[in-house]
C-alpha cells in the first residue's frame, strides 16, 4: 500500500506492505541507519523514534500505523549535535559501544518534552525500557539532569 507520512519534517511517500515494521523501512529502504535493530520485539529500546512526539519502538510499529503522522528519528533531533541532550551526552562522555545510544537519546528527548525537570526516580522509570549493555546508566542519568538544567535556564 502507499503510505504518506512526515519524516524528520519532510513529506515522505512510499509503497510498502502495511505490516512491514517501520524499523526496516527506515534502515533498509530510506537508509536512515541511526535507528538501531537490537531485539525485534520491543524489549530493548534501541529502535526508539518519536511518533507524533511520543516515544515508539520502530521494530514493532507497522508502517501502516504511521500513515498521516510525523516520525522523528535521531537524524532529525538536530542537524549539528546541538540538542541539549546531545551536548550533555558528549560532556558526560556517555556512550561506550554507542549502539543503544540513539534509542536512549530519543527516549530521553521524549521525557524532557513531557517533563522539563524530572527527578532521578522519574528518569529511571521513564528510561527503564532502554537497555545499555555497556552499563552507561549512571552517566545517562547525569546527562539528562544536565540537559534539563540547560533547558530550564535557557
Amino acid at each position: 500500500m502507499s503510505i504518506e507520512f512526515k519524516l524528520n519534517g519532510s513529506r515522505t511517500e512510499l509503497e510498502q506492505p502495511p505490516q512491514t515494521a517501520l524499523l526496516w523501512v527506515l534502515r533498509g529502504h530510506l537508509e536512515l541507519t541511526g535507528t538501531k535493530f537490537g531485539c525485534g520485539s520491543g524489549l530493548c529500546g534501541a529502535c526508539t523514534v518519536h511518533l507524533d512526539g511520543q516515544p515508539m519502538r520502530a521494530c514493532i510499529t507497522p508502517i501502516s500505523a504511521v500513515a498521516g503522522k510525523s516520525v522523528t528519528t535521531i537524524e532529525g533531533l538536530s542537524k549539528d549535535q546541538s540538542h541539549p541532550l546531545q551536548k550533555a551526552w558528549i560532556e558526560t562522555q556517555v556512550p561506550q559501544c554507542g549502539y543503544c545510544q540513539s534509542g536512549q537519546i530519543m527516549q530521553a528527548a521524549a521525557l524532557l518534552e513531557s517533563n522539563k525537570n524530572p527527578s532521578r526516580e522519574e528518569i529511571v522509570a521513564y528510561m527503564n525500557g532502554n537497555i545499555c549493555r555497556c552499563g552507561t546508566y549512571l552517566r545517562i542519568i547525569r546527562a539528562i539532569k544536565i540537559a534539563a538544567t540547560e533547558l530550564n535556564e535557557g
Partner: protein
Amino acid sequence: MISIGGFLSDNRASATETPASNKSRGANITVWVKINSEGMITILNPSAEMGQGSMTALAVLIAEEMDADWSKVRVEQSPIDPKIYGRPGWGGRGYHMITVGSMTVRGYFMPLRQAGAKARYVLLKNAAMNWKVPLTELKTEPGMVIHRPTNRRMSYGEIASFAKTVKDIPEIPEMSLKRPGEFRLIGKFVPRIDIPEKVDGSALYSMDVIVPNMLYATILRTPVNGNRPMSFNEKEIRSMSGIQKIVPLEHGVGILGKRYEDLLLAKRSLKVNWSQGASAEIFDSEKILEGYAKVASSRKKRGHVLAQKGDADSALQKAHRTYSADYLSDHVYHAQMEPLNAIVAVNPAGDGAEIWAGTQSPTGAIKEVAQLLGTSPRKIKLHPCFLGGGFGRRSMSDYIVEAAELSKAVRKPVKLIWSREDDLQYGAFRPMCLQRLDAGVDADGNLIAWKHSIIGDGRRLLSSGAKTPYYDIPNQHIEIIGLNHGVRLKHWRAVGHGFTKFAIESFIDEIAVSEGVDPYQFHRQVMRNSPRALKVLETAADLAGWGRTPSDGHAFGISFAERSGSMAACVAEVSLEKSSGKIRVHRIWSSLDAGIVVQPDNAVAQMESAIIYGLSSVLSERVTFKDGKVQQSNFHNYRVMRMADAPEEIHVKIIDSNESPTGIGETGLPITGGAVANAVAALSGIRLRHLPFTPERVKKALES
C-alpha cells in the same frame, strides 16, 4: 517519490572502494602518522573499537611522544597488517591485531610511544635539513618545531608540505621518551574521539553498511549444536514473496532476498528435519551440574593442575579446623547490543572477497574466509567497522564465515543479520561449572591449606582467575577437571574470573566469619606479603568507610580480584526484599591499580561498565539447556541489568602509579560476585553459592 528530509546517507559502501581511508592527503611521516599541509594529523588505529575507548587511548600515546597538538589529531583505522600494526603477543610471541583480554593499551604502550617519538624524529630531521642546522639545536612544542638558538619556529603542517621520507629511522632510546611528569595527554582528560558520532546516529556499525546489489540473508540454525539439516520444505519457502535463494549449510539453512523483512517471514515458515546424535543432545543444565558434583566427589578423574605449593592434602588433615563448600555457576550470554552481522562480497571468480564487519579478530576472520575460498589471505580485504559491543563474542569469526559461504553461493555481496533470537540461541557462552573448595586453618586461625577444583566443560575458559598469588597460603592445590559435551562456549568478559573469583572471595569471607574475624581484616592478614594488592583493598575499604554501621536493612560485603595484570577491590552495599528474594545493590565503592592510566575518565567508565555487567551476571543472567537446546530467546527471559536495578552510586578510585599499564576493561567484573554474596551473608546469614542469585533462588535459600 521518496524524500528523506535532505539527509545524506554516507553508509553506502561500494565493493571496490574503501569507505573510510584515503580521506586525508598529506605526507606520510611514518607508517602510523600522516600530516597534511594545514597541519591536520592523521593517526592510525590498529585496534577494534567496541566501546572500550582504545582508538582514543592509542592515538594519545602517539600524539604524546610526537608532541602533537591534540586539537589537530584525527584517527583512522589502520590496514590489517600485524607485521606493521600488531602488538607483541602473549609472552612476546609474534605480533597480533586481536582486541581481547584487555591487552590493547598495555600491549601498545611502549610500541606506540616509540612510534610517536619516531614521527617526531622525522619532523625534526626535515626541519633541520630545511634550516641547515644541527638536529640537536631543535626542540618541539605541541605542533611546532623550534630552533633554540634563533627561536625560529615551524609548524608540523609546514614541515609536512616539504617533508621527505626518512629511511632507517633510529630506535629512540627509552630514556629519551617523556617521563610521566612531562606527560601532557597521558593521564589527563582527553575526550573520546568516537563519542560525537555516537550521539547523532552517524557512527557506522557493519549493521549500517549498504553495499550496492547486496542481498540480505538470514539463517535457521540447528537448535542442538552438532546436528545438520537433513531435509526442509524448500518448495514452499522458494514460493514465498521476495525469496531469491536458499542455501543449505552444514549447521543450518540460509535464506536470501532483497528485503530483510521478507526473510523473517520465510524463516518462520521454514521447517527443517535435523539429523540426530550430536553429543550435545544429552545436555540438560540441571543434570549436567549434578554430574559435575559426582565427578568432584568420585575423584576418579585426575585434574589438570594449575598451581601446586607445599602439600595441601596433608595440611588439610593436620589442620585445626577445615572448611568445604561447592560453588556453582550457570552459562551466561554476551548480549552485545548489536546482533551479530557481516557483509561479505565474494568476487565473481570466487577467489577473493571484501568483508565489512565489526570484529575483535580481523586477522582471524581473513584467515578463515581465505580458507573457505581456498585462496590467499592477501585476496581478502576487511573494512573494520565500529562494534556494537564485543565482550569476547566478536573474537569468534563464525558470523563472518557464514556470510562468506552465502556470498560464495550467490557471488553477490551478502549482508547476513542474526536476529536477537539467533544471537542468543546459537550463542557461545561462558561455561557453567562447579567449584569445590577446601581449606584448613591452624590453631591461631591462619589459613594453611587451600584446595580448589573446577569441574566443567570449557577447558582453558575455566582456569582463568583460579590462581591467587597475592594470598599467602603455604599449601595449595588448584586444578581443573575438564569435560566436553559439545555445547558452544567462548570467552566472555573477564573469562572465568567472573565465577572463580566469586567462589574464592565468598569462601575467604565464609572462613573469616566462621573464625570470628572481620572479613576485611582477614583479607589483610592473608595478603600481608602483597603490598600492591593490600593497598588496593585498603583503598576500597577506606572509600566505603568500612567498619561503619550500615543503614537499617542494609549490609556491606568486600571482595578483591586481579584481572589482566590489574588489581581491583570493592565494597558493595546491599539490601534484600525477603518476600520476593530480590537483592538490591545500592552502592559500590571500588579501587583500581592499573599502573599508568592513559585515559582516567575512560578508566572510570570501564570500571562502571564492568561492575554493571558483572552485577547483571551475578543477579539475573542465566542460560539453561534442555536436551541440548537453549531455553531462552530474547531479553524477556534472558534478563540483563536495566537502569532501575543499577546501583544508585558507583565510586571508583584509581591508584596513582608509574608502573607500566595493565588491563582495565574487565577488571571491575570479577569483584562483583563475592562482594554481593558476602553482603547478603552479612545481612541474612545465608551463603549464596549458585550464580546467578535470582529472586527464586534467594527466596528458597531464605526458606530453608
